[in-house]
C-alpha cells in the first residue's frame, strides 16, 4: 500500500527549503489501539510538541491501526517525541526510524 503523501503545511515562521534539503527524516511507526480519538490524539500531540508532518499513512489491521508519520522538523529531538508518544494509552507499539527519502521535492 502506498503511503499518502501530504504536502508539508506552509508555516510562515519555518524555513521549508531547509526542511526539504534534508535527505534523512525521522519517521514514527506506531501501532494504535482501535479506539475513538486515538489518531487525533497522536496527531495533535506531535504538532503541539513542535513537529511538522512530512507524510502520513494509516492502515487498519486486526491488531490495531498502523500509523506511519514522517516528521519534517529540524530543531526538536525526535527520540524525546518517541517517548512522549509511547506513554500514551492508545499506543501499543512505537518505533523511531530514520529513513532516506528518495526525493525531497
Amino acid at each position: 500500500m502506498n503511503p499518502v503523501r501530504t504536502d508539508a503545511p506552509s508555516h510562515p515562521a519555518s524555513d521549508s527549503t531547509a526542511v526539504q534539503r534534508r535527505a534523512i527524516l525521522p519517521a514514527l511507526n506506531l501501532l494504535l489501539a482501535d479506539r475513538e480519538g486515538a489518531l487525533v490524539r497522536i496527531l495533535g500531540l506531535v504538532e503541539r510538541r513542535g513537529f511538522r508532518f512530512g507524510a502520513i499513512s494509516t492502515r487498519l489491521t486486526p491488531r490495531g491501526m498502523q500509523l506511519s508519520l514522517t516528521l519534517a522538523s529540524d530543531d526538536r529531538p525526535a527520540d524525546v517525541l518517541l517517548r512522549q508518544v509511547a506513554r500514551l494509552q492508545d499506543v501499543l507499539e512505537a518505533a523511531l526510524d530514520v529513513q532516506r527519502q528518495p526525493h525531497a521535492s
Partner: protein
Amino acid sequence: MSSTAEHAIPPAVEPRPAAATTLRGADALLGALEAEGVDLVFGYPGGAIMPVYDALVDSGIRHILVRHEQGAALAANGYARHTGRVGVCLATSGPGATNLVTGIADAFLDSVPMVAITGQVATTVMGTDAFQEVDIFGITLPIVKHSFILRDATRIAQTVREAFRIAREGRPGPVLIDLPKDVASAPVAAPRFGPPAAAAAPPVDRTAVQRARTLIAASRQPVFYTGYGAGLAGAEDALRKLVRDTGIPVVSTLKGLGGVPTDDPQFLGMLGMHGSKAANLAVQESDLLIVVGARFDDRATGKLAEFAPHARVIHLDTDGAEISKLRYAQVHIVGDLKAILPQLDCRPEIGPWQSRCEVLRCASQPRYDPPGGDVYGPGLLHRLSELAPPDTVVASDVGQHQMWVAQHCIHRAINRHLTSGGLGTMGFGLPAAMGAKLGNPQAEVVCVSGDGSIMMNIQELATLRRYGVAVKVVLLDNSSLGMVRQWQELFFAERYSEIDLADNPDFAEVARAFGIKAASIEHRDQVDAALHTMLAADEPYFLHVKIDPRANVWPLVPPNTPNHKMMEKQP
C-alpha cells in the same frame, strides 16, 4: 395539570423498583466509583448529568455541591494532592464541562491523579450541535493523560476501573470520562467488581545504578535537585535517608518543597526564578546534579543553556519522557524512586563543598524586620508557620504571596504544600484547601491567597459555609495584581497597566455575608493575636491582611538570565 397536582399523587402509585433489578448506567458508574474506594466527589448538576445525580440519592458516596464547576475540579485536585487518592469531579455537558477545563489542565501540568466525569448529550444527538453539547473529549485532548467517551453502558464498570488505574499509575494525571445521557439511563446488568487494579513496578536498570554510583562517588560538588516526583512516589523517607547518609546538599523545586524539610541544615532552598541565593549559586557551581522527580522547568532553570554549566546530570524519574527533554542526562534511571534511591548510597569526599554550601546557606537567610509598622507579608507567613501545628496543610493561590509561601513557610512534607506550579492557576487556593480539608478533616488547612486570586473562586466560601469546612483563609491584600505590578516596575519601565485593584470590596464584609467569621488587620503588631484567633477557630475563618502594595518578591532571576544573576532587594 399543575405541578402541585402531580406532587399530590401518592408515591405508592409508582413504586420505586428494587435497585438490584433495575440498575442503570448511572448506578453502575457510582458502583464502580465505590469499588475504587471513592467516598467523596465534587460536582455541580445539570441536564445531561441528571441520571447520575438521581443515582447519587441512593448512593453511599458523599457529594459536595460547589458553586462553580472550576471549584469542583480544583477541589478534587487539592483533595488528590493532599490525600494521594484519586480526586473525582462531576459536571454536566457543555458549560459545566468547559468550566472544568482549567482544573483538569492544572492537574495535567502538575501530575495530579484525578478523574473528571462529564455528562454528555444523548448519543443519538451527539454531533448535531444539541443543547449544551460540546466536544469536551476533543477540547481536553491535550490536557488529559487519557480520556473516554462511554458509548456502551456494559463497559461502564470496566472503563471506570481503567480510568482510575491510568490516573494513579506511574506519573499520575487527569482522566476524563464523557458519559452520554442515554448511556447513563440505559439498563445494565449488575457488574461484578474485583479489587482495584494495580500495576507491577518495572525493574530498576542495574547498570545505570552502577554508573550513577560511580558518578556520585567521583563528584566533588554534587547537589540533589528534588521535585514533586519524590512526593508522588512516596519516596520522601528514602530521599531523606539518602541525603543524610551521603551528606550531599539539597535544593528543591517549588512543588518539591518539603521533600527534605526546609529547616534541615542540608537544605539550601528553592531553586529558580524566586529561589534562594544559596540554592541557585550551589546549582550553578555544582559538578553533578542528581535530579529526583523533577523536570527542568523554565521557572527552575532560568536560562537553560547556562543552567548548571559545569554539572553532569543523573536523572531519576518515573516518566521516561522527561529524560533529556530539556537537559541531557549522562545517566538516567526510569522507575519507582522509592526503589531507586536506596541503591544510590555512596560517600563522596565533599567536605570543602559542604562548607561552601553552609556559608551560602547562612548568607541567604531572610530577615523579617523591615522598617515601618506595616504588615510584612513574608514575616506574617513565617510567623504562621511557627504558630500553626507542624502538620498544617498550606494551600496557596498564585502570585507574590505564592512565592512568599514557598520561601518563608516551613515545609515538612510535599503533600502539605499545595501550590499550582505548572499552570499557575489563580483561584486554585480556596477550592484546593477545601478539597484537602474534606479529604483529611483532622488536618489544619490554611489557604493563603491574594486580592487578585481570591476573587477567581470566592464563591466557594459558600461551600465552606454549607459543609462547615473549617479552612482558614489568610488574604494578603496589596490592592493590586502584585506579581504583574512587580514585573511592570522592573521590566516594563514602571508603565503600570491594569494592575490597580484599589476599589476591592471590603473582603471581611464579603466573608461575613457568606456567613464566615472574619477579621481585618493592617499593622504588624496585630499579626500574632490575629493568627492565634484564626488558628483557634474550629470553623471556617477569613483573615484579611492589608499589606504594603510596593512589597516585591526577592530574590528574582530576570527572564532569560542564568540563575546566578539574581536581583536582590534594593537597600
